[in-house]
Every structure is written in C-alpha cells, then in structure tokens.
C-alpha cells in the first residue's frame, strides 16, 4: 500500500493536511519564495471557505510582506475571479488558498503569474528552486509595504468580462428556473448574485453559506449530486449547476435530474463557441473524443495536451485556441474571459445556448455523439510504474501509442489512457469506446495488465 500524502511540495505547489503537516511556517516560507520570484509589487491574495483558510491567509500575507510585496486581500472568492483580478489590476501575481476539490482537512496554494495564469512548468520549477535554496528577499522596515482590502471589485471585474461574450438580454428574457449547489464554497454568494441578479434567473439554491462546512464531497461527481437533482425535479428547473469549493469546476444537471457527463458539458460549450467563432480547440489527453467530433463538425481541429490546467493553457496560448478544457475535470477554459477553468463562464454559456436554441439541455446533450466511458484509479508500487506501462503497451500491439503524458493507446473506435497522478501515488486510467461491449472488453484487458 502506498503512503497517504499528507504533505506534498512539488512543481504543483504546496498541498497538505493542515496542522501537523502543512504548517503556517511552511505556507509563509513558500509565499516568501513566491514573492521573491515575482518581485516587489502588488500580489492578490484570496481563498476558499475552508476552516483553515483564514489562518493560512495570515501566514501567506506574512511571507509576501516579508519579501516586500503589497498584499491585496480579496477575501473569499472563486479561483477564476482571483485570476481575473490579478490580470485586470496589473498585479505582480496572485495566490489562491484552496485545495480545490480535495477533502476539508487539506489545503493548498495555487500560484498565478502577472497575467493571472497558473505558473507553467518552468516557472514552477524556478520557484521551487528558490524555495529549496531559501533565497528569500527580506525587506527592511523602509521597504515593507502594507495590506489593502478589495472585496468588491473582483466579482465585478470577472462578471463584466463574462457578459461581453453572452447575450444577457436573451438570457434574462427567459427567466430560467435554475438550481444551484454551491457546496458552501468560495463562489456561494457570487453565484447567487450572478444567477439571480445578473442573469435574471429564478434561483433555487442549496449550500450557498460560505460560513458552513462542505455538505457533500467537494468534487462535484454525479454520485454526490443527488440533492441537486432532487432540487431540479421538485422545482421543474431548466438546468442545475454544481460547483467545487473554489468555483473552477462545474457540473451540470439536466431538467430531468440527470447529471451530465463532464465531457459532454465541455462538448456543449465547444459547440456553442465554435458556432460563432471557429478556431482550434485544446483538451487534455483524457478528454472524450466527443469534443473532437463536435469540433470536426465545425471543421475545427482539436489538439491534445498533457493533463493539468497549466498544460492545457500553455497549449491553448501557443495554438491560439478559441476554447479548451479538461473534460473529465469539469473545466471550461474560454480565453477572452481568462485562461482558466471557469464555472461562471460555463454557466453563462450554457444558459445562453438554451436561450439561443430554444432547446432543453437534455435535447442538446442528446444530439452529441455517444461514447461509453470508464475511469478509475489504482495505487501503484514505487518502481513498478515503467514496467506496468510497458506491459500495457505490449498487450495492445496494434494500437497507436502516445507517450505525451503516461501512455495513451489509440484505436480506430476507442482509446485507453493510463498515467500517474500529479498529486497522489495513484495510477489513473480512462477508457472510451464507441460501444459498450468494446468498452468492457478493453477495460477487462486493462485490469489484467495492471
């Protein structure tokens, strides 16, 4: 059995169980390394609703101030909103204190550069070197800046950007009945305001109290969204939305109470965007081929990147993609708002699509090509990863291999993707096929190989 990873300091930043493992001193030191890296200037600091967030916010502020940065505290806000704020205000960088979809005992720091983008691989490894060498900038009393508070402008900035890309009047005219499960997360209050006041929806919301703990598992998987589905059915809603604690991931429930597959949600968003702005699409290797099919119907190319938001964003920027995302992770990335997964743009886009087509969300989903998918994870022993991958590849001699991120085996009617998780000692596998029988066959063979 593998160890439980209670603290991980690596290229994806710092993440761990708060208290014994992720201590305030560690958070402050990491923040000081970050501030040393981005240089003296303004740094935007926000967080999600975890009970440990307030404490870590003080620790991070201490580290940022110690290196001579001015701290702009924006309070409890969704990660994409913080990213837009960084980009919009000319800050040196930003930090979000959130462990995203991880359980409540965890917390982590998400790091953004001056464009409000996740640090890319090179930036992250440079920062990590600074941290390990303890080469921090130590500001003197003459150089230390202060803390400013800006709780109001970031949601406004974010929403303004979104509204440029949807037809608000068209959405408002529909007076959609919308259900929302905010998981008592960072977006709770903003989502309520956005859907009710800005988009004119009749809102039925649960778990939108940021002072309360997460009422369900933080990751919005279909299995934990029963309350949302019930809310949709009881109130005859047109659509239901579920967020994760930091508001980057979005799950969607159709009007019948069926939670859509995240890949299909991304495909619907891609369809909507390409319909008016054709261009390249970038998704990660584990995203369903349904996105490729939808893009092909618009005569647009789909490109694949390694798993991870920063990887998708890097590829999108290089290719000038018009939309992208990580299907399985429920993230829609729409560059004109911000190069980040953004549940708000996702909600607005889908409502706009409903208003535009006059169709129900289940009808839109039914028009997508049908794939059968399965995904899972399995702990692996240290040192066994390479041989497992090789064995898998040998057992499918006719498949076309792709080694971009782990191993992806492509067949004319299916694919298999196996990779090691970036954050946990787990092997993640995903299989997709055009028929259920083919899926089960491949899945069986993958199990045998693993």
């Amino acid at each position, binding site marked *: 059995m593998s160890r439980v990873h209670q603290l991980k300091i690596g290229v994806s930043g710092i993440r761990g169980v708060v208290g014994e493992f992720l201590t305030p001193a560690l958070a402050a030191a990491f923040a000081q390394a970050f501030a040393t890296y981005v240089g003296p200037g303004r740094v935007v600091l926000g967080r999600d609703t975890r009970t440990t967030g307030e404490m870590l916010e003080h620790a991070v502020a201490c580290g940022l*101030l110690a290196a001579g940065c001015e701290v702009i505290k924006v309070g409890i806000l969704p990660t994409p909103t913080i990213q837009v704020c960084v980009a919009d205000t000319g800050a040196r960088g930003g930090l979000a204190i959130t462990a995203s979809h991880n359980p409540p005992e965890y917390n982590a720091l998400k790091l953004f550069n001056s464009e409000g983008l996740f640090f890319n691989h090179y930036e992250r490894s440079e920062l990590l070197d600074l941290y390990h060498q303890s080469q921090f900038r*130590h500001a003197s009393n003459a150089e230390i800046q202060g803390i400013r508070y800006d709780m109001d402008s970031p949601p406004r900035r974010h929403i303004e950007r979104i509204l440029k890309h949807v037809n608000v009047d068209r959405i408002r005219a529909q007076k959609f009945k919308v259900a929302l499960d905010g998981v008592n997360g960072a977006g709770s209050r903003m989502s309520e305001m956005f859907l009710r006041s800005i988009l004119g929806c009749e809102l039925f919301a649960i778990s939108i109290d940021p002072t309360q703990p997460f009422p369900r598992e933080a990751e919005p998987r279909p299995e934990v969204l029963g309350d949302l589905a019930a809310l949709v059915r009881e109130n005859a809603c047109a659509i239901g939305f579920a967020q994760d604690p930091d508001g980057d991931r979005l799950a969607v429930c159709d009007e019948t109470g069926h939670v859509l597959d995240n890949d299909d949600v991304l495909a619907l968003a891609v369809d909507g965007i390409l319909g008016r702005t054709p261009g390249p699409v970038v998704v990660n290797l584990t995203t369903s081929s349904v996105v490729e099919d939808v893009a092909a119907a618009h005569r647009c190319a789909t490109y694949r990147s390694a798993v991870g938001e920063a990887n998708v964003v890097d590829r999108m920027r290089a290719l000038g993609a018009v939309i992208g995302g990580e299907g399985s992770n429920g993230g829609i990335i729409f560059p004109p708002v911000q190069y980040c997964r953004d549940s708000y743009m996702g909600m607005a886009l889908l409502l706009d699509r409903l208003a535009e087509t006059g169709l129900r969300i289940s009808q839109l989903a039914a028009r997508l090509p049908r794939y059968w998918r399965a995904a899972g994870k399995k702990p692996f022993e240290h040192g066994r990863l390479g041989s497992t991958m090789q064995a898998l590849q040998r057992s499918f001699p006719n498949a076309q291999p792709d080694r971009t991120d782990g191993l992806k085996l492509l067949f004319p009617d299916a694919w298999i993707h196996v990779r090691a998780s970036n954050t946990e000692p787990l092997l993640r596998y995903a299989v997709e096929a055009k028929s259920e029988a083919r899926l089960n066959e491949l899945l069986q063979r993958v199990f045998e190989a693993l």
Partner: protein
Amino acid sequence: MARSSPLRISTVGVRGIVGTALQASHALDFGAAFGTFLGEPGTVVTGRDPRASGIMLNEGVCASLLACGHNVIDLGVVSSPVIQHSIRRLGAAGGVSISASHNPAEWNAIKFFGANGTYLSSSEASELLDIYHLRKFTFRDWRGIGHLRSDPNAIDLYLDELARVFDLRSLSRFRVLVDATNGTSARLLEGMNKRFEMNFILINARTERRAFVHEPATNQAMVSLQLAPLVRHVKADAGFLFDIDSDRIAIATETGQAVSEEMVLPLLADYQLAQGPGKLVIANLSTTALLDEIASWHGGTVVRAPVGRQAAIDALATFRPEEVAVAGEGTGAVMMPQFRFVYDGIASMLAILTILRRRGIPLSKLIESYPRYRILKGEVPLASRRIPQMFLDLERRFEGGTRNTQDGLRIDWPGRWFHVRVSQTEPIVRVICEQKDEPPSALFEELMEIVRSYSL
C-alpha cells in the same frame, strides 16, 4: 571583541533589525511557541506599534496562534498598556505586543504577556524559549483552528479605566505639551482631549511607519533637544515625551528645563508612598539613591534588582502586591499597583499631574524641592573574556562601602555610589556613578579608566 547583535532572543522576547536579523520565520515560530505554551485553546490579544514591519510580523504571529487553535483579537496599532488592559478585560489567556519601543524605526520586537496582562516570569519565559528552540508546536487540525477578529472599543475601555483611577476633571486645567514621537500615545491622548476635555497639546502626533521624526529615546538629552524649548513657547504647565509604545516617559518643566529621566520613578515613588507609607519601592541597581532618601521619609524600603525588565518583573513577583508602592527603572518606565503593575506612560504622566494639583506648585518648583543628585553615565566596548578579571580588579581597588554583586558591581558609600555592569542589549560595559549635590567627576574618570584598560 564581542559582536554586536542585530538579533536578540531572550526571556523578554525577540528583538532585531527587520529583514537582516528579525524575519518572518521568527514571527511564525514565536507565535507557534507562544500558542503551544498557552496550552488549551483560548483567546489571545495582539497589537503593534506603527512600524511598517509590524504588519508583517503580526500576520505571522496571528497565523501561528490560529493554527494552535487560539482565537485572536487583533487590536491593530495600539500602545502596549492598551494590549495589557484588553487581555485582562477580555479574560484572555495572553497577549502579544509587536513593538521595538524606544529602538529606531528599522528595529522591531515581539513581546509576550500572560493572563491578566502580566509579563511572563523568568521560568515561564524560559519554558517559552525551550518550546521555541525545540520547535515542537501543538497545531490543531482543520476542525480546531481559531478565528481572528478586531475590537474597536479597546481604546475607549482603556481610557475609561484611566478615568476611574484619576480625577481627570481636576487635571484638565493643566495645559500639557506632549511629544508623541510618531508613536501610539497620540491617538489615546486625542481621545482623552475629546472625551474628558483634557488639555493635551500634541506634537509629532502623526503615527509614522517608516521613520520617526527623532530617535524615540525617552531621556534628558532628547527632551532638551526636542521638547523643552517648546514648553515655554506654548505656555504649558509641563511637557512629556513618550516612546513609541507609550510605556515610558521623560519630562520637561514649565520653564523649559529637561528633567533627568531618573526623576520619573522618584516622583511616583513619593506620590505612591505618601498614600501607602512603609511600602516597598522596587528599582534596579542603576537607579538613583534619591529613591532611598524618599523611601526613608515615608518609612519605605527600596529593593534593588539587577538591571532589565525580566529582573524587575521577577523581583516584583516575590512580594504580595499590597506590599509594593511602585516599581520601575531609571529609564522612565514605571509600574503602579492601580494598573496591576503594567509599565504605562500615560498613567505615569497622569500621576505626576496629580502631584502638581495636590501640591499646588509649578513642576519646576516640585523638581527643585527634591535633594539634588548628580549622575554620570558612560560606556566602554566589551571584551567578554576579560570581564571577570575586571570586576575582581574593581572590587580590590575600592574599599569600604556596601557591595552588591547581583549584576556586575555596585558599591554604595554615604551620598555616593557607582555601578559597573555588562549591558544585556549591547556589547558594552556601562559605568554609572552618582553623588549628592556635586557631580562625581573624579570617581567617574577613575572608573572609566579602569574599565577601558580591560576593553581591548
């Protein structure tokens, strides 16, 4: 030669030049050590002086206290006495003051208070240091982490207590010039002007983050330079100079004379002993012999402890509070029982104004009414290794007198004494001698020459 120490970790807390010596990690580790030291989660009060670095250090201290499960009440920029008062009022488990007090602006310090706002005893403080050095901190899990809030009423409630102890209405007739040195006293005194119609005229009242208008030292030299010339100009009855965290004062008379900082404790000792004859005055070995003379008028006794806050606090703890009239140092920092023995510059100033009102004479006449002692102070760079030999030599060279070797060497003869000791804060030997009426110049020169001969 001993190295100069830009960072100093002692039982009084941690102090240093921010950036080069005192860093974020100290705030986090000391916050965690204090949070662990306090044990079961409770409430902790924090406050700071206006130095820019205080915000950074406070964020670190608060983060660690919260991680240990304590709820933090952050008072923001306030004086140390307000922090201590709030600890008591809120029934908090302890408090933290982030202030380098009388040090220049580039310095800062983190100091700790126990329940009731008291200073930590030596044994408590050394336990705290042990926890700090071991770095074995007790952090709570995600369910037990504390929360932080502010307390906007802290200053008003502190002023209420001053108003209960002193008859402020009767003191409002005095026109008092105050140099706040850009520190925390200005806001408090402005509050008193507004609420109690006091007549404090404030200069250097703006709190400054980067640099203070003058060195924040509360001594006679600073008073003559900055404050004394203005007192006559504004026709004030008295002038007071405050340090940054408002726990000590220095005085100027209505005639524009700078009064020795050594006089604050004798004035207050006289005032307190008059109300409680026969009680004790706790002072240190470097404070003036005038104290002994004043104590003898009231049948009181002077208890002398080694120099330094910690020694005074420990000495104070060995007596029942009702036995003690006053405790303090020759630096202008004085604790009175009415304030549960907290160094409080504003309370000291109000007590002195109360003396003026009762005696009905101007401040200059009050000062002149005391016998005159002349004090000379010097310092010589330290050669640590030769110190024991130097003290042996001094003991041999001076005969007779009453000897005290608790902290270096003090010898008292009738009307005359000297004290040679090693500074706790700087790599120097301090030489102090005092004589009634005339300056002890010959003795001072002789001492300096001996000490210098051991310097290199």
